[in-house]
């Protein structure tokens, strides 16, 4: 579909949507990898997976690719993962993609490795049964995969009794197969916040091999079926895992550590190529490169300024300009406006598009520098609100040393986008430009006196 390019500020305001992940092949897409100082994520992962597959032993245990992809919220991860899915699909791989933010109730559910593996079973069955693959996994294989789950849920030991209990307790259709009943039951239990979910978790922790075998029995069948059809092997992309809420668990571990560090061996268990998204804050704080076989793939910001000087990066600014002009005609902007907005965004694409959107809300025939200043002022105000006194010292550290201090507030600074990651031949961290000029940061007292209570 060819989209019309906005020709007036009101058209730009109405059509520029900062929150939209672009579908693969969208004409608005601009490859920003050179401007980010990295290889293109979709291209890089496609290349590695193809090499792995083409070399002997790709289907053998332990030789599949396992990637972690990360980057700031709004940097374009999902857009690249859509492109990866498309590229690998065109290369003959069978793609299964799901978004944890949609499939899980991240608020109610404590998402852990076993819920991710279980979700893989549902998604592989559902997506590969569709054209062009039309793979029907034998019912007995599916039922075997969930029998352990049904045993915990129903407290029954015989399959027939389990099935009856699932039908009556969860009011699922009697004609549905056992597998579908178990799936419906677990989803209902999660939605209700039932304590049975904890029992399932405990069972999975007690006998992880059962769930590993369940997943791999299905994946192995699928891999064979794909080979028989002349396809390449299976790739599973689990997006949205970076949205798992950060919480401290009972044993002082965090939810992020539990999934990606402590239980990484389970995430690596499925016998296919895997791509997981990872919270950026975890990457910064943990040596995750030693836990997963491949180095994590980071999508840094567009490098609008060079590290060692305040000089603007012309190539990066040109790339950002193209991001806009594929949506809005250049004639809508007064000279210098796009550059102003790009620099103020720090190279964060969603912030950049948000600035464009806000600047387009003026009433002139063109978007002027005054409109840009108003938009930037609004973004500075929003970032200003998020700055708290306890962040001042770690922010000062980043400003001075181009890296995070390694303190307890690093995660917050990253999650609130107060600091941004960049890459050239090295990785560095810098304050978001709107933070640099935020009143709370500029004028904060650097020696803080605490009041004591009486």
């Amino acid at each position, binding site marked *: 579909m060819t989209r019309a390019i906005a020709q007036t500020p009101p058209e730009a305001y*109405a059509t520029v949507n900062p929150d939209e992940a672009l579908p693969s092949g969208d004409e608005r897409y601009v490859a920003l990898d050179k401007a980010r100082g990295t290889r293109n994520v979709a291209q890089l992962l496609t290349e590695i997976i193809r090499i792995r597959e083409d070399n002997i032993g790709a289907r053998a245990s332990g030789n599949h690719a396992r990637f972690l992809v990360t980057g700031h919220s709004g940097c374009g991860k999902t857009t690249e993962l859509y492109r990866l899915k498309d590229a690998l699909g065109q290369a003959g791989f069978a793609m299964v993609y799901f978004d944890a933010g949609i499939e899980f109730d991240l608020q109610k559910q404590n998402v852990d490795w076993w819920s991710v593996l279980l979700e893989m079973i549902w998604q592989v069955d559902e997506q590969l049964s569709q054209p062009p693959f039309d793979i029907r996994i034998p019912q007995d294989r599916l039922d075997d995969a969930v029998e352990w789950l049904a045993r915990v849920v129903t407290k029954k030991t015989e399959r027939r009794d389990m099935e009856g209990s699932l039908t009556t307790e969860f009011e699922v259709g009697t004609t549905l197969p056992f597998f579908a009943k178990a799936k419906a039951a677990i989803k209902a239990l999660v939605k209700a916040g039932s304590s049975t979910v904890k029992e399932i978790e405990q069972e999975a922790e007690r006998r992880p091999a059962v769930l590993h075998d369940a997943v791999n029995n299905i994946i192995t069948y699928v891999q064979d079926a794909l080979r028989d059809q002349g396809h390449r092997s299976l790739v599973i992309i689990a997006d949205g895992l970076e949205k798992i809420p950060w919480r401290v668990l009972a044993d002082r571990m965090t939810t992020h550590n539990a999934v990606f560090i402590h239980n990484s061996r389970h995430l690596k268990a499925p016998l296919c190529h895997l791509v997981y998204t990872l919270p950026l804050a975890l990457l910064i704080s943990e040596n995750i490169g030693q836990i997963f076989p491949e180095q994590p793939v980071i999508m840094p910001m567009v490098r609008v300024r060079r590290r060692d000087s305040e000089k603007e990066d012309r190539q990066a600014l040109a790339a950002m300009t193209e991001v806009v002009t594929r949506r809005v005609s250049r004639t809508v902007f007064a000279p210098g406006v796009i550059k102003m907005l790009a620099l103020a965004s720090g190279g964060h694409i969603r912030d950049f598009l948000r600035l464009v959107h806000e600047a387009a809300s003026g*009433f002139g025939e063109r978007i002027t520098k*005054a*409109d840009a200043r108003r938009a930037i002022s609004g973004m*500075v*105000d929003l970032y200003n609100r998020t700055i*708290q006194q306890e962040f001042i010292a770690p922010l000062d550290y980043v400003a001075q040393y181009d890296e995070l201090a390694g303190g307890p507030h690093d995660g917050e600074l990253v999650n609130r986008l107060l600091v941004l990651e960049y890459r050239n031949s090295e990785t560095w961290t810098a304050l978001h430009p709107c933070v640099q000029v935020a009143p709370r940061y500029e004028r904060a*007292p650097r020696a803080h006196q605490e009041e004591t209570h*009486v």
Partner: protein
Amino acid sequence: MRTKKKPTSKTPPPVYPMPHDATLTPAAQEDWSRLTHLLPLNRGPRLLFVLVDSPVLRRRLLEHLAAALSADGQTVARLDLTAPHYQPLQEIFAAAEVQPQARFFFLTGLERSLISPEHRLSALADLNLHRDQLRDRLACPLVVWTTDATLTDLARHTPDFIAWQNGIFTLADPAVAVEAPYRQHLIDRFSKLTLYSATSDAPLAVDLERVFVKLTTTQQRPPVASSVTTAWESLGPSGEAVPPASATAGKAAARRTLRSVSFSPEHEFAEGSTAALSLTEALQSGRCLAVIGAPGAGKTTLLHFLALTFARRQAPERLDMHEERLPLFVALRDFNRFLDEAARDDPLLHRDPNVLPRFLIKRTQELAPHVQLSPDFFH
């Protein structure tokens, strides 16, 4: 703190004029105009914020705009979260589903879910973690009418939700606009309760409003003289006992610092008594209160809670007190230090009627240099 928006020139008159009885700052008038022009350009699931600190003005402007839009054939669905909710987004989606024809969805009352200690964490998690559902379950723009402090709260604790905002419009009346930065400063200053532990180096900071438990206070009622001739004594400036001239004066004197009471044997006195009071009753019992308690009893924490409550204009909900006050928090040790320092430069300081406002301005500037108040703000 709200940074000043730089007004642009050439903002056209609003599509819908303001209510004639509404008074807005010039910047707010411009935002009203922008809001009326831009709202119709928003289609599909969008998220916009309209910030109005005064509840009365907020209701007035919302109703006026909703009526104007409806008269133009643009249906406005409304939802007022009158009680706190654990999952306010789910309430919004449920309401939106029964009004699929709505062109805009106006939401009020979101702040109630965020200030309720019981509902706060769940409400914030719901907003931040389920924001993707806005795309699928909302067919029209959601316009959240709330306070400036609520936006700050959301910006800090629901960054993913706020990242979806498509516009923020601030409609402030002049009086409220002047106070807003100071109120936010108080919220920032007192919202965290820092706890120190003998077993840990790092102190723990918790949300004071989440953990605060309203204690019952007791009021000590002093013994009352049964004779007309009062036997009360009070202390004069030099510490001498000064018998009051009359029973009426005696009552007035009893309100001053009472160090000792001596009784003549011919007078009869009722026993002193204590009465349990709720916090609200205590606050309403008099204009001047002395809160007395052992060290660590929670006196300062109580004052911080009250400062937060009035700074957030939450007295009706938290204290069942329907009044608005601007808290002025004075730590006497800081005031004493200020007086000592100022008296070196001005020996006649004690005659200055503005000594307290001067202290408050200086202290605010020390604690929060980014908060810019006019020099006569506390006068």
